[in-house]
């Protein structure tokens, strides 16, 4: 093996910077899952009766289902009885009314993540909802949002305060029968964010949720529901981290987006769950269902994701383009290192006339990691003049990793135009040497080349997030050249 291949291999030995554990007193359910756990969960959350029914129905359906096996990932079967389905920091009876009432340890934990909730509220102009294990601990900027008519709150709160919206929209994009993990989520989800933007309102600030799994042996099942009513606009950011633990932890989230006529939703994710150590021990199993329904004419949903974390990622943010002239976009960077596995991509379902979709996927694999793009473009008979453009690029760092591409195309409407382009490239030793000969360290060179590769996706991210994403890619490759 030549020197620079060796260097690349060394660079890959990164350290995870968010791996701290916060010591807190918690209320945690004993591990195990049956109907009584769901009753208990619904009760502790003080949910309306219809929610309990919803959960039980989902649970019963889940029990008839099998864990999916088609994805290009390998893992031992998950023992769902060894997971605890609820963990919440202990706190005053009715929960925090303001940030002053939040446990200082939690605030400290968010500070370490670079998300100082208190300052964020005052300075940054981004409204933040922070979900710690199973509960939402803080939502900032509530006042200002309320003035605009925007509802941004923990979904557990929305269940109590806006049951009519929940009844109408929850499960309307991802039904409980959709897939194994979505059914499980519907049965046991604990918290997440709820957003409603009323007709004609442009949300006055970016909305953002930070998820953190802290407790051991717990799963995180969050549920996000965003409804953009006619002519409204919203940009939503999601970030996630977890401590370093030797055992695998399950994260099975569901995100539903509904865009009505002329509405625009931009959903950006920087996912940095703990990926496991360099030998593949521990890490989060990130099995997520994200789907948007472009329900109204001329609506638009744009997914942008930067995925650097998790031991296994199984995730296909999708758009159902129901409304005529509606637009779906998917911009993705997925980086896998060491023993990480990612099977990710998107589905674009064209139903309405003149619907358009764009897919730009950038997969980077380093170390011994596997990275798979899996995408479906489906054009139904009704979707006259539908158009799709897909570009799918893979970059290999080192010589022990893999990249795979599975594009599925189903077209039932002859006027549709579907384009697909795919490339695979490698960071060559000549490129590395060239950069080093210009004075850059091998690490900086890899990071620069990777960032260049991802440029088209990064430019879709909101400014602060783009900076964070670039830094994260650098960190995730740290140690792979030495």
């Amino acid at each position: 093996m030549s020197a620079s291949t060796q260097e690349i291999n060394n660079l890959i030995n990164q350290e995870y910077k968010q791996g701290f554990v916060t010591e807190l007193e918690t209320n945690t359910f004993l591990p195990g899952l049956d109907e009584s756990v769901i009753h208990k969960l619904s009760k502790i959350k003080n949910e309306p009766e219809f929610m309990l029914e919803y959960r039980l129905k989902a649970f019963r359906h889940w029990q008839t289902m099998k864990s999916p096996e088609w994805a290009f990932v390998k893992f031992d079967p998950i023992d769902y009885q060894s997971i605890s389905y609820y963990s919440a920091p202990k706190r005053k009876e009715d929960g925090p009314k303001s940030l002053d009432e939040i446990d200082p340890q939690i605030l400290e934990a968010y500070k370490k993540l670079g998300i100082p909730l208190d300052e964020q509220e005052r300075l940054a102009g981004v409204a933040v909802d922070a979900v710690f294990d199973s509960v939402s601990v803080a939502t900032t900027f509530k006042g200002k949002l309320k003035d605009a008519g925007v509802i941004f709150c923990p979904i557990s709160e929305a269940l109590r305060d806006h049951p009519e919206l929940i009844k109408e929209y929850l499960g309307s994009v991802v039904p409980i029968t959709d897939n194994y993990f979505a059914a499980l989520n519907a049965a046991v989800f604990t918290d997440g964010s709820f957003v409603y933007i009323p007709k004609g309102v442009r949300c006055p600030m970016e909305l953002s949720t930070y998820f953190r799994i802290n407790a051991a042996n717990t799963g995180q099942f969050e549920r996000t529901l965003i409804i953009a009513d006619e002519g409204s606009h919203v940009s939503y950011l999601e970030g996630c981290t977890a401590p370093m633990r030797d055992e695998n932890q399950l994260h099975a989230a569901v995100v539903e987006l509904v865009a009505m006529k002329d509405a625009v939703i931009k959903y950006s994710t920087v996912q940095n769950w703990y990926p496991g150590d360099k030998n593949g021990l521990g890490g989060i199993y990130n099995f997520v269902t994200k789907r948007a329904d472009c329900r109204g004419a001329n609506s638009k949903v744009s997914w942008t994701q930067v995925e650097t974390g998790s031991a296994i990622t199984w995730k296909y943010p999708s758009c159902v383009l129901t409304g005529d002239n509606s637009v779906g976009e998917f911009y993705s960077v997925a980086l896998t290192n060491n023993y990480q596995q990612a099977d990710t991509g998107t589905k674009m379902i064209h139903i309405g006339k003149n619907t358009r979709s764009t897919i730009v996927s950038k997969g980077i694999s380093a170390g011994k990691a596997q990275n798979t793009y899996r995408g479906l473009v489906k054009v139904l008979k009704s979707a006259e003049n539908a158009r799709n453009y897909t570009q799918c690029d893979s970059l290999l760092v080192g010589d022990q990793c893999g990249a795979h591409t599975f594009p599925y195309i189903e077209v039932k409407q002859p006027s549709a135009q579907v384009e697909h382009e795919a490339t695979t490239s490698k960071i060559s030793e000549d490129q590395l040497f060239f950069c080093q000969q210009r004075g850059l360290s091998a690490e900086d060179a890899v990071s620069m080349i990777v960032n260049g590769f991802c440029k088209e996706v990064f430019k879709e991210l909101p400014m602060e997030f783009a900076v964070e994403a670039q830094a994260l890619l650098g960190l995730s490759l740290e140690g792979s050249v030495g």
Partner: protein
Amino acid sequence: MLSIKNLHVSVGDKPILKGINLEIKPGEIHAIMGPNGSGKSTLSHILSGKSGYTVTEGSATYQGKDLLEMPPEIRAREGVFLAFQYPVEIPGVSNVYLLKAALNSIRKHQGQSEVDAMDFLTLVKGKVRLLEMDEKFLYRAVNEGFSGGEKKRNEILQMAILEPKLCILDETDSGLDIDALKIVSEGVNSLRSPDRSFVMVTHYQRLLDYIKPDFVHVLANGQIVKSGGAELALELEEKGYSWLEDAEASA
């Protein structure tokens, strides 16, 4: 500046350089000529730190330091620059971004502060004009889709901005049209200074009409078989290399 003593280099088991001796003083220009496959690029690579070669004997000392011990990026920061025979493409990374990152890493090594964005642009645009390039090249990805000649010119642009001490030009003239050769040569000449040295690998006397070397060396089969002044290049142009190889064989 650079002192190479009895340098032997192999790739795997195959010896390529077989005892090179070369002394380069500050301000000097040395031209290296020789048949294809004689080891000229190998010499350029070994001096700039490319991996994949084994030094089996000998030494190279640069400004009093053991050059062969230094990692490639340290050599670059200490002022060794290689203009590649075959420059690589780096998709997605703009020329101007690479130049700034390179310049700053060199400045940092030399204890200087990062270059101010405005000063940097002024500097870069000046050099772009010097080499009669279009400013658009700054914002294109490094060498991506550049023509052969544009890539070569881009190498010299980088050299002009990074201001190295020891400039190694591996066949920079190959692939340049007549006008470009003149422009690039003028660029190189403008960088000549009493404390900057050049090693120019070339096959053609033509380049040496524009950049007059102090010494010309002939590399054949891994050794320097003849050294002389600028006039040696004219002689080679006329007679080719075979008379030297014959002389070597009979010696």
